[in-house]
C-alpha cells in the first residue's frame, strides 16, 4: 500500500460576506466544508456533496456556484457571499423577506441554497417569467415541494428590484 502522508495545508484568503478570512486548508477541502467546518458558517448546507441538489449554493464573485464542487484552494482571494451575508444591518434581503411572505420553504434546509441561487439568478437577468424561473431554478431541489411558493417569492423580489 502506498505511503499514507496527508498533503500539506495551504494558506488561503477568502473574502466571506465582506470580511477577509485567512485559513489553511488541504487541497481536498471543498469550499463547502471550509465554510461549514472551518469558518462555522453553517448556513450553507450539504445535501449531497455531489453537485446534485444545490443546497450548497453560494455566490462567488457574484455568480451562483455549488460550493461542494469547488475546492477551497481554487478560490484564494475570491469574494464569497453566503446566506449569512445577505441581510444588511438586520434588514432582510428582499428575497429573504419574499421567501417568508410566500412560505417558500418548510424544513428550511434547501432554503439558503435556494435564496443564494435566486440572488444569482436575479443578477443574471435571464429569467423574465415564471416558466423561466422554474427552468433556471431547477438545480436547487426542495424535497418539501415548496417550488410554487419559491417561484412566487422570486417573482415578488424581481418585481421590486
Amino acid at each position, binding site marked *: 500500500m502506498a505511503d499514507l502522508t496527508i498533503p500539506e495545508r495551504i494558506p488561503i484568503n477568502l473574502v466571506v460576506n465582506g470580511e477577509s478570512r485567512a485559513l489553511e486548508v488541504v487541497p481536498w477541502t471543498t469550499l463547502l466544508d471550509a465554510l461549514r467546518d472551518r469558518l462555522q458558517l453553517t448556513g450553507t448546507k450539504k445535501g449531497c456533496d455531489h453537485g446534485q*441538489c444545490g443546497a450548497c449554493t453560494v455566490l462567488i464573485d457574484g455568480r451562483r456556484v455549488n460550493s461542494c464542487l469547488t475546492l477551497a484552494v481554487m478560490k484564494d482571494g475570491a469574494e464569497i457571499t453566503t446566506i449569512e451575508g445577505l441581510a444588511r444591518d438586520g434588514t432582510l434581503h428582499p428575497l429573504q423577506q419574499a421567501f417568508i411572505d410566500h412560505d417558500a420553504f418548510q424544513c428550511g434546509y434547501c432554503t439558503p441554497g435556494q*435564496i443564494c441561487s435566486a440572488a444569482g439568478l436575479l443578477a443574471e437577468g435571464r429569467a423574465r417569467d415564471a416558466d423561466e424561473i422554474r427552468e433556471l431554478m431547477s438545480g436547487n431541489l426542495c424535497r418539501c415541494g415548496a417550488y410554487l411558493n419559491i417561484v412566487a417569492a422570486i417573482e415578488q423580489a424581481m418585481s421590486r428590484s
Partner: protein
Amino acid sequence: MNAYVGTPTSRVDGRAKVTGAAKYAGEFAADGLLHGFVVEASIARGRVARLDTSEALKVKGVVDVLTHEHRPPLADKDEAWKDEVAPEKGSPFRPLYDERVKFNGQPIALVVAEDWEIAKFAATRVRVEYEQEAFSTDLESERGKAEKVDQPHKPRGDAAAALTRAAVRHEADYVIPTEHHNPMELFATTAVWNGSGGLTVYDKTQGVQNVQKFLCSVFGKEPDDIRVISPYVGGAFGSGLRPQHQVVLATLAALALKRSVRVVLTRQQMYGLGYRPMTIERVALGAKPDGTLDAITHEAIAVTSRYEDFSRNDTGWAEQLYKSPNSNFSHKLVDLDVSTPSDMRAPGAATGVCALECAMDELAVALKLDPVELRLRCYSDRDQSQSLPYTSKQLRECYARGAEAFGWSRRNPAPRSMRDGKELVGWGMATGVWEALQMPVAVRIVLTANGHAEVSCAASDIGTGTYTIVAQVAADALGLPIENISVRLADSTLPQAPVEGGSWMAASSAHAVLGAAEEIRWELARLAKAMPGSPLADLDAADVTLTDGMIASSDGRGAAVSIADVMRHSKLERIEKEKLNQFAEDKSHARNTHSAVFAEVKIDEELGIIRVTRIVNAVAAGRILNTKTGRSQIMGGVVWGIGMALHEETVMDHRFGRIMNANIAEYHIPVNADVHDIDVIFVDEPDERINRLGIKGLGEIGIVGVPAAIANAVYHATGKRIRRFPITLDKLLE
C-alpha cells in the same frame, strides 16, 4: 378569541431559516470534535470473516476504528433495541453488533478522525473479507413465498362468488417500486461529551424522546445521562421516526473515546436506511350494471427484511371507502435480504389508494361511466369496515368543489380525444383518504409578568409548521400578540410528546397548548378575584377569558384586570403550568380526512414526455389551523404525488442485492420545472366531535390519490394503462 388560529400566519421560525441561523443536527460545534465516517458492507448476506483496520489506523489524524470486535458494550436483548415505533415482530438491526451482514450497505465499521476528510479517506483503507451466503432481494421472483400478516380485516359476504357473477369486472396488479425519502438534510448526529460521562446528542430525528429512551436502553444509561435535541429537522417524511444508524454510531464513538463525535451519513449511505417498500397491489372490482360495487378484493404483497416484519395498512382503505356487500382483503410480506422498510409519507395509503383508485378508473371506463359519478354511486357515509359514522366527512363536497375548479364537466371521456397543439391532453381524478389521529402530548407554559409566554414541548417540527401552530394557539388562548410567544421544541427534557408522524401532531400539540393555557387562565382568575375591589370578584374561572393582555369577563360586560397588574399585585414574576392532554376514546365514530384530486397531463407522444400541467386537490380535513402553512403541506404532498407517479424508483441490481441509483441525480425527485399549477382547496368541514378545535391534520392527505389521478390522466391522454410505477417515457413508447 381567534386572532391567529385559522389565519395565514407566516412561520415563526421563518427568519431563522432564511438567514442561515437555524442549526441542524450536524451543525453544532463542540471542543475537540471528532468526525466519524461509516464503512458499509458490500454484500447482501453473509458474515464479515476478517476486518483489517491496520492501514486505516496508520493514516495521520485517525483516532480509532470501531467495529463489532472493537467497541463499548451494547445491549444484547431485542427489547432494548425496540424503539417507540419499531415493528412488533422481529429483531431490530444493531449497528456494529456482530459479524452478520443482513443487507448491502449495512454499517460494519466507523472510522473516527480529527477531520471529516481524513475519516472519509481512511475508510477506503479498511480491508474486509466476507463469507457470502445465498440471498434474494427480488420481490417479484419471491412472490410465491409471501406470507399473510395478521390484520383486523373482516371479509364481507362472498367476494369470490360476487366477482364471478359481476356484470362488469376489473382485476389487475399495480406495482409500486421501492422509494426513498431523500430529505434534503443528510442524516447526522453530533454527540457532545459533557466530561462527566453524560452526552448531549444533537440528532436528526422526528422524536427526541424516542431517541433518548432508545439510547439509554441500548447503552445501559440512566435517563439523566443522555439528552437529545433536534431544534430543526431538514425534512424527514418518516425516515426519522426510528433512531437511525448514525445516532448509535456517534454515541458509541463518543462513549468509547470520551470525546465529542459527529457522524454524518453520505447521501449514498442514506439508502441503507428505511424506505417505502415495493408493493404489488392486486385489486379486483365487480360492479352491477347500475355502477354500484358488488365486490372488492384487495391483496397487497410487500417487501420486508428478514429480521423485522414491517407492514402497513394498504388494503384497509378499500375496505373503508366504498359500499360493497362482498369484499375480502389481505396483506402479505416477503422476507428479503434488505434493510427494514419504514414509514414514508402516507404509508400504506399512498400505495394502496393508488392501486384502488386506478382500478376504479378502469372500472369506470368498463362501465362507460364518468369516474366522479362512479365514486358518487359507491359513496358511503359510514366507514364500511366497521360500519361506523364519521365524526365528519365532506368528501362529496371535495368532488364537487374540485370538479368545479378544475372544469371537469368539459372533459371528453374518450381517450386521446383532447389535444393542445402537438400534445395529447389527459384529465384524470382520484379519491384520497387518511386517518385523523391524535396522541397524548404535554405542554408547559411559562407566563412572565412582562406579558411574554414561553411554550415548550418535546414535539418536533420537521418542516410541518409545529412551531407556528403552537404559537398561534397559545397566542389566542393567552390573549397575547404572537410576537410575545416563544416556542421551544424538540428537547428530550421538555414535556412529553410522541414522534412527529401520522399527521397527528397538529391536533395533539394544539390541544395540549389549550390545556396548559387553561391552567394559566384559572390561576390568573384565582389571583384576580383575590385582589381588593376586583371587578372579577364574583366570577368563576370558567367565566373569564384572556384577551389583549387582560383577564376579562366572558359575558362582555367589560369587567377586566390586566395580567400585569394581577401578577404585580400577587408579587409573581412568572406563572408556570404544565398539562398532559389526553383525548377521550371514542369507538363510536371513524376519524378520517378525505380529498378529491384532479390532474391534467400533457404528453408529447413522439418523445413520451409527460408534464403535469395542473392539479386541483380539494381537501376536507376539519379546521385548518394555518391556511398558509396548511396549503404548503398539501402542495408538498402533491409534489410527492407527482414524483411517485412519474419519477421515483429505487433500482436494485438483484445480482448483488445493491441499489444502483443511490444518489439524487439518478433517483429522480420532482424539480422546480416539473411543477406547474397546483390549486389547493380546503373544503369547509366543521367537526365538533373529533376534538375541541375540530382539527384533523394535513401531513399525509396531500399525497394520497395524486399518483392515481395522474396515472388516470395519462390513460385518458394516450389510451395506455400503465400499472407499473413510475410512469416513465419508455413505458409510454413501448
